[in-house]
């Protein structure tokens, strides 16, 4: 009964989504305001029914209803309740449902927060969002219904790989989706502005907090996925340029560009058509990304038609939504003219570079990700694109980008002038370079050229981001959330840069044979093998090695890796030991017993790996702080009147 209720709720949600887009997009053409008044009700109703459908699927999972095919395929009776709930988005059908639910949440938020905006404009925004909802609901109901039954019901469901049962992995998809779908708000605002012909600065200002929040979620989602891959999978890395990772990284890069270009459009009325294009592409890429990943399209070319019906539906949907938006763009963007100028060293031009470089970075990844597909489609043979391509080509736009951040974020609008912060900025540059050189000379070395460069850039970005807030505090000025958020996000970028640079250049690994009491040096650490002792667990006996790690004569960690023998299974297993601290991970795993107390050991030192996650967290917090800035809260009446005149101007008729 419950799955049928869920199914029915989805159908009702679809009907309401149709109403929402019809009233939202066609309503403004009529003179009657009650068409517009109907839109929020459709939004609310759609939210209620989507939530109900989610609730029904969760209930089926919690109650072990294996007659529901999706439940039987993604959970079994041994699965703890937390992972049964998380199993909801474990596969394609449930992910789509989650996507729809998140879209509905964002739509409700936009409805509530936009009451002071011109009603016709809001209606169009909600209309566009409704259209997206229609597409996804249709897709779900027609090809990917999670509520289908199995007859006969299997006695139990399929068991999932326990490595996939992990907290980080369980909350990673919702975060990522909230980010992906959040970009639909910017997309909808851009489309509404183009439909209406209201292409002044207003839409950019209204869009900013939404984009920043979506970006923050996207950041968190990507970081969680990377953290999981590092700690749970133990693959010894945090980024693999996997198509799935790339699919989430491309929208992130474009969203980052969009945040910056929205600032220019909002403050100075420049880059208008460019900003529109970014708003369209950001969401388009996340749309492409989700579909590619969830239907397995990008994992392999062959997987594109996971189910031919699905593939065709996806393609049709992409054509309508993205093609529609780009057609609107081709029609409306030529009307835009920017009449304000700016100097080469002004903030505008720095942000222009920022945008160009970020888009190049996204394009590089796009090319690398789709290349295997192109090669296959043209019968050029199988092509595999890996880190050998991505690492160097990604660095090309990224290095200049990082080098420009510190000056760019402090240069004045219109005229390139650092003003009062000129000296502190130069000071931070000198300090950063000195620190980087000192670090290389002291803790690391100069064997990898990127190390001092990356360190100096990261340090400079983090230090320079502090200049403005410190300056304001010293002068007794207030610190608006926008400034705090911006500083935090850039500090996070600096920390992330430092982390990635050091991990990539300084990680050392060695497989070595050590006799008892012998030691070996790895970087600045010396590992001493203190011998083995028998150990016992609940269901195994083990040989436990003791490895004492010293740094500069001081003991920093005692690692106890084990080689276990399980009694029942009579099987051996290796349990590595990791010691994590804020500035490095130490890793020891036992190899073979070489006799006479000698063992082969695998040793690793991964410095500053934690900085990668710290950096991402700081960036995310910065995004949230900035997105919730009060300056985006619109006063009740004033801007409406102003915006109304703008519309009138744009349409060349009386409002």
């Amino acid at each position, binding site marked *: 009964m419950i799955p049928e209720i869920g199914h029915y709720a989805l159908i009702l949600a679809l009907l309401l989504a149709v109403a929402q887009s019809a009233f939202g997009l066609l309503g403004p053409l009529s003179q009657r305001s009650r068409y517009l008044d109907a839109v929020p009700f459709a939004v609310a109703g759609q939210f209620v029914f989507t939530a109900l459908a989610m609730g029904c699927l969760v209930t089926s999972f919690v109650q072990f209803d294996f007659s529901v095919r999706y439940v039987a*395929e993604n959970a079994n009776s*041994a699965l703890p309740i937390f992972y049964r709930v998380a199993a909801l988005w474990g596969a394609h059908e449930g992910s789509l449902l989650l996507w729809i639910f998140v879209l509905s949440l964002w739509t409700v938020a936009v409805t509530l927060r936009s009451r002071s905006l011109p009603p016709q404009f809001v209606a169009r925004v909600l209309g566009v969002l409704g259209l997206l909802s229609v597409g996804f609901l249709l897709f779900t109901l027609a090809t990917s219904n999670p509520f289908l039954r199995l007859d006969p019901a*299997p*006695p*139990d469901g*399929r*068991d*999932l*790989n*326990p*490595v996939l049962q992990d907290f980080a992995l369980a909350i990673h998809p919702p975060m990522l989706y909230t980010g992906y779908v959040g970009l639909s708000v910017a997309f909808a605002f851009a489309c509404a502005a183009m439909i209406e012909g209201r292409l002044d600065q207003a839409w950019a200002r209204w869009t900013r907090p939404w984009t920043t929040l979506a970006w923050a979620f996207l950041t968190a989602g990507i970081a969680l996925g990377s953290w999981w891959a590092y700690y749970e*999978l133990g693959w010894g890395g945090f980024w693999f340029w996997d198509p799935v990772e790339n699919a989430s990284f491309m929208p992130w890069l474009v969203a980052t560009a969009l945040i910056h270009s929205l600032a220019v459009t909002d403050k100075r009325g420049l880059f208008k*058509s460019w900003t529109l*294009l970014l708003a*369209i*592409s950001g969401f*388009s890429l996340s749309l492409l990304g989700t579909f590619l990943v969830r239907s*397995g*399209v990008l*994992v*392999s*070319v*062959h*997987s*594109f*038609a*996971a*189910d*031919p019906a699905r*593939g*065709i539906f996806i*393609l049709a949907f*992409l*054509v309508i939504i*993205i*093609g529609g938006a*780009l*057609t609107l*763009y*081709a029609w409306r*963007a*030529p009307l835009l003219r920017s009449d304000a100028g700016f100097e080469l060293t002004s903030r505008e031009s720095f942000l222009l570079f920022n945008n160009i470089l970020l888009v190049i970075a996204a394009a590089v990844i796009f090319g690398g990700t*789709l290349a295997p*597909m*192109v090669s*296959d*489609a043209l019968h050029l043979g*199988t092509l595999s694109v890996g880190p050998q391509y991505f690492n160097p080509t990604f660095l090309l736009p990224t290095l200049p980008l990082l080098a420009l951040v510190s000056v760019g974020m402090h240069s004045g609008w219109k005229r390139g002038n650092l003003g009062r912060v000129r000296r502190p900025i130069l000071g931070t540059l000198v300090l950063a370079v000195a620190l980087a050189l000192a670090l290389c000379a002291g803790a690391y070395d100069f064997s990898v050229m990127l190390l001092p460069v990356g360190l100096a850039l990261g340090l400079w970005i983090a230090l320079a981001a502090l200049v403005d807030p410190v300056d304001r505090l010293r002068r007794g000025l207030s610190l608006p959330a926008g400034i705090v958020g911006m500083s935090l996000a850039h500090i996070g970028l600096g920390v992330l840069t430092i982390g990635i640079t050091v991990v990539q250049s300084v990680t050392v690994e060695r497989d070595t044979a050590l006799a008892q009491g012998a030691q070996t040096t790895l970087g600045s650490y010396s590992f001493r093998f203190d011998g083995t002792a028998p150990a016992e667990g609940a269901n195994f006996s083990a040989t436990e090695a003791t490895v004492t790690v010293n740094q500069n004569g001081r003991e920093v960690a005692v690692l106890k890796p084990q080689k276990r023998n*399980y009694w*029942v*299974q*009579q*099987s*051996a*297993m290796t349990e590595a030991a990791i010691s994590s601290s804020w500035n490095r991970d130490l890793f020891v795993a036992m190899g073979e017993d070489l006799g006479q107390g000698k063992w082969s050991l695998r040793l690793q030192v991964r410095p500053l790996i934690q900085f990668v996650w710290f950096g991402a967290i700081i960036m995310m917090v910065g995004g949230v702080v900035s997105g919730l800035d009060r300056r985006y809260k619109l006063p009740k009446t004033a801007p409406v009147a102003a915006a109304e005149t703008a519309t009138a101007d744009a349409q060349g008729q009386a409002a």
Partner: protein
Amino acid sequence: MKALNRFVLPLGGFALLVLLLAIGLRQAPDKGIIVSPLIGKPAPALRLPLLNEPAVMLDAAETFRGRWYLLNVWGTWCPECRYEHKALTEISQRYQIPVLGMDWKDDDAAAREWLQQLGNPYEQVVTDHEGRTAIAWGVYGAPETYLINPAGIIVHKKVGGLTLDIWQREFLPLMTRSGS
């Protein structure tokens, strides 16, 4: 007019992308439901202890070099594996295809008992307690069966229980087509 062209560019680029996706889509139907990105690629390394002799490690690439074989992922905790077992036994006997069993996340004693009771269709059975190898092969749930050709390339994968019908329809043609 010149200005217009510039703004049509994104649309043109997108049209190209759609074309590409459409080609990918058109080429796909004969491949049916996708199962794994590994198909057509060399099989990932598989070096695991034998169920009956845990001290001995089996290297699949070495053991099965130059032969067609099936990798069957199963576990005693998996009800569908029990239904599948009969079909697997019949396939391995009637078609003389060696089957490598991967006992996944399982209790060794229970697994031995299972094989004693139900019969053993496997040429070799290895155990994957940690599930790392299963991750490398992209195993999502049991049972799953992979077909690997003599060159060590994964040719096909079946998610869920194997039946004689599926074997004859999906697996067998792949082997004869390649002239084995």
